[in-house]
Structures are given as C-alpha cells and as structure tokens.
C-alpha cells in the first residue's frame, strides 16, 4: 500500500501547488512534478513485505511491487518527455497540474488493478487507469484530432467496460464470488464460465489492443498528444499485460484449456493484422500504434509456457518494450514539438541533420524489431522460447515470420532517416534537458538490458509466484 500512498501524496502536493500557484505563472509546477515523481519512483524500489489488506481486496508481494516499479519507470520517462510540451502548450493554457493529476491517477488505477485481489477492485482499477487517459487523449482541446481521439477512446472504453461487466456478472453468477482466490478454485470451465471469461477478457484485451479489440488504438495514438500516445502504448498496455498475466497464469489455470486457445488465435491475428497495417503507414505515430499492436501479439507468446520462464519473459519484454517504444516516441515527440511534422517523408535525411536523434531512433527501431545485441532481441527471444517451451512451434514460426514483416516496416523508417537525402531536411533539433534525459534513460535501457543478464535473472527470481 506504500506505493499507492506515496503517489497519492504526490498528487496531493501537486494539488496544493496548484492552489499555491493559482493566478501565477505555473511553469514551476513542471520541475516540481518531475522531481516529486522521480522521488516517488526512486522510493518505490525500497523493498516491501508481502501480504493482503482490506479483506483480501488488496494484496502485494515482491513481484507485484516490481511491476509497479516498472510502470513507474515508464511514467517517469513519459513525464520527462512531455515536460517540454507541457511547458510550451499547457502552461499558457493553465492546465498543467491537471495534466499531472490525471496522469498519476491513471497510474494509481493501475497500481490498484495489479494489486487487486478481487474482481471489483480489478474493475475499478481498470476504469481508473482508462478514464483519465481518455481525458488526456482529448487534452489538446483546440485540436480536432485530439477531440476525436478522446471521443473514440472513451466510447470504446465504455463499451469495453460494459462487456467486461457482462462477463464479470456471468462469472459471478456461476461462482458467486468476486475474490480472485476463491474464483480460481471454483472455476471449472463450463460454457457459462467460458462466456463470462471471454467477455471479461475482451476488456483487458481492449487495453492491450489485441485484434479485434484494437481498432481504437491507432486512431487514438495518432490523435492524442504524442506523450500520451507513448503512455498508452507502453504504460497502459504494460499494466494490462501484467494484470492479464496475473489473472491467467495465477488465477485461471483451470481455464487454461480455453485461454491458451484464445491467446493462440489472437496472437496470430494480432501480429499479422498489426503488421499488415503498419506496413503502409506514413504517419509515425500511427505507425508506432500498429507496431505496438503487433508487439502485443508477440507478448501473448509468453503466456504459452506454464513455467516461471514464461512469466519472466513477459515482464522482461514489457520492460524492454518500455525503453524501446518510448525512445521511438521520444524522437517522434521532439521532432513534432520542433516542427510539427510526423510523417515518414519528413524524416528523409534525418541522420545527416540530427545524427544523435537518428541514432536513438535507429536503436529503438532495431530493438523493437529484435535485432541483437539490443534489448529487444533478448526480449523477443525469451518470448519465443516460452512458445517453444509450450511446444507451439507452428505459432512460433508464424510469429517469427511476422518479425520479418515487422523488420520491413521498421527498416522503412531507417531508410528514410539514413538512406535518403532530402531537399528539405528537418532543421537541427535542440531538445531540452528533460527530453535528453529521457532518451538517455531509454538508450541505456536498450543497450544494457540485453547484454547484462542481471535484470532478467532478477525478474526470473521474482516470478516464483504471481
């Protein structure tokens, strides 16, 4: 519970700051927020005991704690990346503190979601992690695209939560309980339970953006402020993956006969459809959206191994994915902030003008594509190992062939940045320190995570229990 309280404290301090600053220039809120959140993220690493509170509605142990820390890391990077945008855009509009409040309340929702020992808390956490983000997606109130993104997100989120509710109600009807522990003992896999489970699953799948529950994602990513798109694609998705992992592997082994099939099917669909759409994107944000849809498909492979290695591979991949994807979003963000351009053509000749940013982008894309010796390679490799451990070689082959397609479109951007020369290249982009720091963190993660095995070993050790 310490984690949640810390964050709540941060939220409260910012609220106070808002009051303190009212009527004044609020640019001071930005460093304050970043510093506070940095402290919070740092403090999160203090070890914590395991146990349950509120009659089992809240539970925690080392792994859950670690997952929250992973999410913190992602949010920290997002906060750093958005700092410039916040200062430039939100401070004049006087909507700074609210931005952070919304962002962090959604993070708080994720904490509760992951820590929930009960379907009710899970549902509330899910909603709480989604609704503020919908507001954030619509945060650039003056842009039509942002409004459209917000409306699409909130409508789809509403539908998803409604379907989830239907599923929960059916599960409740079948078992009479909301406690996950009890539920896991009572589930037997009857038709009604299957139905309830799949409806429930659709809600989580919506957040992970699995095909066919993914349609909102590209539109929202494209329309939302870039930082929020990064947040959605990484933190929000990561949290949903974590909860799915806890639910399926921890609480629904009785239904594994069903969900393995579901995941098998959706993994194929998600990878393939995501890739096919990503192939022909011009807008980089949209492109990254589809790529992250495809990446979600790969993550599903980690669920197919019943052992510790499967869970470890999922968490590890999400961690790696946070760094890789946020690095890419960071570059897109800084280009967009400086020039307003976000099309692939605009990036032609990028390397010759902004070699460092281009290198960051290159590393990020190669990591996403799974090229050694970057972290993404290891992340994907371990996922593939999980699939192979389960004996799903056909799926594995499809997945690996999909990585080839994905490599194709990642290389398209590399092509634009490195191979092409442009008559009208982008100007030299000067980033602020926050953005640089965030990119540095990401690059360090991309480079170090794979080669040094410590992180993986640590995660593996944590995965003893869910």
């Amino acid at each position: 519970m310490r984690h949640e309280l810390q964050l709540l404290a941060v939220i409260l301090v910012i609220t106070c700051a808002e009051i303190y600053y009212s009527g004044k220039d609020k640019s001071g809120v930005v460093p304050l927020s970043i510093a506070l959140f940095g402290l919070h993220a740092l403090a999160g690493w203090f070890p914590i005991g395991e146990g349950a509170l509120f009659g089992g509605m809240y539970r925690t142990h080392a792994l859950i704690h670690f997952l929250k820390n992973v999410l913190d890391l992602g949010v920290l990077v997002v906060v750093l990346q958005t700092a410039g945008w916040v200062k430039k855009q939100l401070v004049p509009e006087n909507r700074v503190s609210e931005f952070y409040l919304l962002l962090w309340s959604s993070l708080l929702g994720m904490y509760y979601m992951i820590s929930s020992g009960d379907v009710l808390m899970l549902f509330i956490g899910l909603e709480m992690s989604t609704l503020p983000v919908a507001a954030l997606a619509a945060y650039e109130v003056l842009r039509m695209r942002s409004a459209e993104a917000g409306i699409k997100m909130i409508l789809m989120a509403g539908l998803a939560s409604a379907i989830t509710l239907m599923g929960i109600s059916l599960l409740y009807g079948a078992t009479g309980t909301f406690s996950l522990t009890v539920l896991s003992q009572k589930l037997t896999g009857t038709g009604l339970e299957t139905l309830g489970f799949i409806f429930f699953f659709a809600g989580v799948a919506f957040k992970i953006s699995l095909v066919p529950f993914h349609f909102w994602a590209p539109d929202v990513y494209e329309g939302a402020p870039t930082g929020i798109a990064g947040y959605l694609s990484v933190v929000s998705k990561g949290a949903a993956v974590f909860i799915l992992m806890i639910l399926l592997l921890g609480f629904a082994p009785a239904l594994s006969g069903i969900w393995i099939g579901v995941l098998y099917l959706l993994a194929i669909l998600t990878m393939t459809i995501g890739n096919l759409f990503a192939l022909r994107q011009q807008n980089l944000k949209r492109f990254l959206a589809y790529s992250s849809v495809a990446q979600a498909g790969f993550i599903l492979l980690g669920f197919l191994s019943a052992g510790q290695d499967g869970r470890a591979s999922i968490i590890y991949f999400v961690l790696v994915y946070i760094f890789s994807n946020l690095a890419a979003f960071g570059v897109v963000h800084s280009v967009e902030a400086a020039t307003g351009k976000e099309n692939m053509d605009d990036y032609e000749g990028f390397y010759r003008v902004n070699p460092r940013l281009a290198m960051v982008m290159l590393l990020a894309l190669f990591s996403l594509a799974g090229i050694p010796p970057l972290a993404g390679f290891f992340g994907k490799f371990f996922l593939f190992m999980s699939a192979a451990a389960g004996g799903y070689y056909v799926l594995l082959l499809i997945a690996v062939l999909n990585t080839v397609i994905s490599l194709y479109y990642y290389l398209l951007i590399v092509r634009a940045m490195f191979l092409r020369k442009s008559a009208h290249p982008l100007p030299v982009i000067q980033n602020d320190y926050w953005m640089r720091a965030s990119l540095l963190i990401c690059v360090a993660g991309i480079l170090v995570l794979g080669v040094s095995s410590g992180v993986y070993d640590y995660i593996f050790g944590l995965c003893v229990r869910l």
Partner: protein
Amino acid sequence: MIPGVSLIEILAVSTLMFFIGVYGFVTRKNLITILMSLELILNGAAINFVAFNKYLYPGEPAGQFFTLFLIAVAAAEVALAIAIVINLYRRIKTVDVDNVDTLKY
C-alpha cells in the same frame, strides 16, 4: 426473489437490454445517443449482478455493491464523455458520429 418470477426471466430482460444497447451503440448517428445506448448496456449488466445476488447468493451483498460502484463508474464515464463531446462540438459544431472519422486507415 420475486414470487413466480424465475431467475432466467430476469436474466432474459437484462440480456436483451444489453444487446439492444449494443445495437443502439453501433447504429445511432449521434454521439449523445451512443452514450445513451452505453447506459443501456451498463444497466443490462447491472441487473445481472442484482439478480444473481438476489436469487443465488443472498448471503453476501457483493452483487449489490458491485452495482453500486458500477453506477458510480458509469457516472464518471458519462460525465467525461459528455465533456469531450461538448469540446468536440465546439470544434466542429456537430456531434454527428459520421464526422468523427478523420483518423483512419
């Protein structure tokens, strides 16, 4: 328990309401009516909780509480959604869903 009314009858009502809501959600042309359909869907699910609680597991008011929180969540959602819709209306002077498809492919 309503004397003479079986569980399945209540569930039938809720299920039908749920899917009527889905139908509305998919077919209505106006964002606000879509939100209204969403309310129908949510209420369809809510009735389920209540009915199950009442008919099958009366010992614990878990279903009731769930519905309670559900209503709160729904309220929050609708409030936020309407805010976004109004903002959209400010932008393009319409809340017709057909005009909200500039982001695609």
